[in-house]
């Protein structure tokens, strides 16, 4: 599963529960006992991240619930036919987007997981890119790509949702397929099943569970879609998220917004619970899995052709909107100067948004990395209490960004903590979303450290903090860098929460893009595209650099590469 190890893949992976595999150090009994004693002392470390979570996520959530659960707000919301149609639209566009994403994503997921072909790794990384791009960038790319008649239309929203979320299917379904024993497909072939029939009668039924699991994730993203809907849908097609934002910032109708947030939360939790329940009932029992990937080489011309066409179409699928975005940044109204928009972002106030984004991202990285590192230490040391903290920290991911922003807004606009007009709201909001990613990067490495390594250090006379400094930290440093990189990428693209929190002149790049699109002109569109291009390049660069970190994510790469020839020999030849 090479793609599982890529940084972009890990971002997708962090949100998918199906693929949470973490290394554990092999323990001797004696080592386990010493470890349990040592770890009891690590619980106090959880205090800081717990307070962070309680103050900046728990409290706003409670504030929102108290406002939103007022009966008057509820009855007026449910009686409003306009809001009923918003709810209906939110639901059906999410269902249709999810369905289309799954239908289009399963085949490329299978091809990438099963076939060996030139450029496989590159294509795998490329297909993960749309998912890590900020929603405003995606929205703008499709604004640039689609014909005028499609703009501000429902199909545009659906297409953009599919484009972003195919990565989730490719990653979750692909990693499942790559572990599926290819012997089953061989068995089907010897029983007279063509490739097509093998897919239909063997692979697809076995993969059903993984597909249904990723459906839940994609549905969640499409249901709570904000940036894409705001940019591509226009005022005529609001989802619940956009409606909450509109009520809050434009009609200042906070009680309706709170009621809508509560309704949205209930709908999401309800839909996901029903889905999980049904999925569990549909599960077909354990499937024999293998830990190593066995690729196949296309054996007939039709098969090679199918693989080649899939690869080319998939690459074009990702590259065309991106290319169109870059091209649009050079189409300003000034003839003869294709770089006018680029000059403008350097010389005008748009340059300030780059600076603001950098500042906010730096703050978010500091907070998220600190909280994530502390939380990881506490989680690794305390299996039970730690699991609770781990789950708690994942909550902001499941809650929509708009809900987080809205909650922070209505909680910290009055004493005891009044942060109105302060730019720190932005990094705090971003850090809430980014912290779970830091935990996902750090925790496996931390758990992988053999406790006896620490014991060896202490028998050599190292004090506890010296053990930490000389044993844990050197190993963790790379994982921390990876976590910090995720946090930076998330903060740079964050749009939902930011739309509520930036009232103070701290206009980040995504907000500047949205502002420019609010007054569409050729130059504004070109400038927005230039900003979006900068954002895209920076985020993809961060993730590519993380991908090359020898420690963090790619740690096991070295061993895998060395082991590969022998392994392939076993699977392909002598089995």
């Amino acid at each position, binding site marked *: 599963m090479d793609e599982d190890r890529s940084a972009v893949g890990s971002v997708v992976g962090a949100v998918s529960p199906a693929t949470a595999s973490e290394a554990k150090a092999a323990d001797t009994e004696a080592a386990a006992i010493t470890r349990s004693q040592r770890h009891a002392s690590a619980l106090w470390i959880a205090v800081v991240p717990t307070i962070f979570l309680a103050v900046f996520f728990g409290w706003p959530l409670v504030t929102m619930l108290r406002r939103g659960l007022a009966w008057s707000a509820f009855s007026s919301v449910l009686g409003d036919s306009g809001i009923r149609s918003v709810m209906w639209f939110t639901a059906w566009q999410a269902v249709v987007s999810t369905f289309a994403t799954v239908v289009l994503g399963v085949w490329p997921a299978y091809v990438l997981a099963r076939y060996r072909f030139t450029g496989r790794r590159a294509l795998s990384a490329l297909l993960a890119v749309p998912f890590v791009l900020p929603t405003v960038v995606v929205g703008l790319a499709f604004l640039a790509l689609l014909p005028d008649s499609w703009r501000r239309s429902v199909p545009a929203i659906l297409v953009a949702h599919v484009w972003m979320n195919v990565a989730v299917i490719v990653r979750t379904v692909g990693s499942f397929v790559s572990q599926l*024993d290819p*012997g*089953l497909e*061989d*068995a*089907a*072939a*010897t*029983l*007279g*099943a*063509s*490739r097509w*029939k*093998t897919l239909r*009668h*063997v692979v697809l*039924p*076995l993969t059903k569970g993984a597909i249904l699991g990723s459906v839940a994730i994609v549905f969640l993203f499409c249901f709570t879609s904000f940036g894409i809907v705001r940019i591509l849908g226009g005022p005529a097609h609001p989802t619940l998220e956009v409606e909450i934002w509109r009520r809050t910032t434009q009609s200042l109708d906070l009680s309706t917004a709170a009621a809508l947030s509560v309704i949205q939360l209930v709908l999401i939790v309800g839909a996901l619970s029903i889905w999980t329940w049904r999925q569990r009932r549909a599960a*077909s*029992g*354990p*499937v*024999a899995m293998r830990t190593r990937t066995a690729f196949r080489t296309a*054996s*007939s011309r039709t098969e090679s052709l199918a693989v080649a066409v899939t690869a080319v179409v998939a690459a074009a699928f990702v590259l065309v909107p991106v290319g169109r975005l870059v091209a649009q940044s050079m189409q300003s109204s000034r003839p003869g100067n294709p770089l006018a928009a680029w000059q403008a972002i350097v010389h005008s106030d748009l340059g300030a948004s780059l600076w603001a984004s950098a500042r906010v991202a730096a703050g978010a990285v500091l907070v998220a990395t600190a909280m994530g590192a502390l939380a990881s230490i506490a989680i690794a040391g305390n299996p039970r209490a730690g699991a609770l903290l781990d789950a708690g920290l994942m909550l902001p991911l499941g809650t929509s960004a708009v809900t987080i922003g809205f909650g922070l807004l209505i909680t910290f606009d009055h004493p005891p903590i009044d942060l109105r007009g302060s730019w720190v709201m932005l990094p705090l909001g971003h850090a809430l979303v980014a912290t779970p990613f830091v935990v996902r990067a750090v925790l496996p490495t931390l758990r992988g450290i053999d406790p006896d390594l620490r014991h060896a250090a202490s028998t050599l006379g190292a004090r506890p903090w010296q053990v930490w400094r000389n044993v844990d930290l050197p190993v963790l440093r790379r994982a921390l860098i990876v976590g910090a990189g995720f946090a930076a990428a998330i903060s740079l693209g964050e749009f939902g929460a930011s739309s509520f929190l930036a009232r103070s002149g701290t206009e980040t790049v995504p907000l500047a893009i949205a502002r420019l699109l609010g007054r569409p002109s050729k130059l504004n569109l070109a400038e927005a595209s230039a900003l979006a291009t900068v954002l895209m390049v920076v985020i993809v660069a961060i993730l590519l650099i993380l991908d090359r970190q020898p420690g963090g994510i790619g740690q096991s790469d070295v061993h895998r590469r060395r082991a590969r*020839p022998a392994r392939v*020999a076993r699977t*392909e*030849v*002598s*089995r």
Partner: protein
Amino acid sequence: MTLRAIGITVRFDQRLILDDVDLSVDDGEIVALLGPSGSGKSTLLRVIAGLLRSESGTIRWDEQDLTALPPHRRQIGLVFQDEQLFPHLDVAGNIGFGLRMARVPRRRIAERTDELLHLVQLEGFGHRSIHELSGGEAKRVALARALAPSPRVLLLDEPLTGLDRELHDQLVVELAAILRSVGTTAVHVTHDVDEAKSMADTVLTMGDLRRDRPSA
């Protein structure tokens, strides 16, 4: 009717796995192929089944050249060492799989499945989940599944490896009886000399298949 593998060469990573190997199996004949692990027995079976491409050589069924055919069009059955039963299908679903692929009418599939369940002495097991089967039962289902579409040749890739001694010996007798009663042409790969002798009409070692050897 004869299955012939002629001049099969397979190389992997510069290592020669099969070097110009010949094998010929007559109609109804059961050939046991002996050799230590790593001698390329399984590789040869996979080449014959079409699951693996050889660098050179041809596979023939009488006058018909099978070399370019994909596995699903060769009508050559294979019993895998690790069974490879489909986990999403029950016992009957596994046995009937090949017949479904051949679009045999459903009623006929049910009859044939019962016939095979009887043959491998698993009457009434049709609706069992394959997760509930014991090791020996799973082997029998794998055999029944491979026999169901009546393949021209049945290949058995160390089907009895990994069982405890008692069960192994019992299954050797059963398997031999089943193959005789069906009258199928078969190539049975094993590293167990006794197993080979009690199963097969002809016992060959991998060394016998080298073309450059003076014919035995």
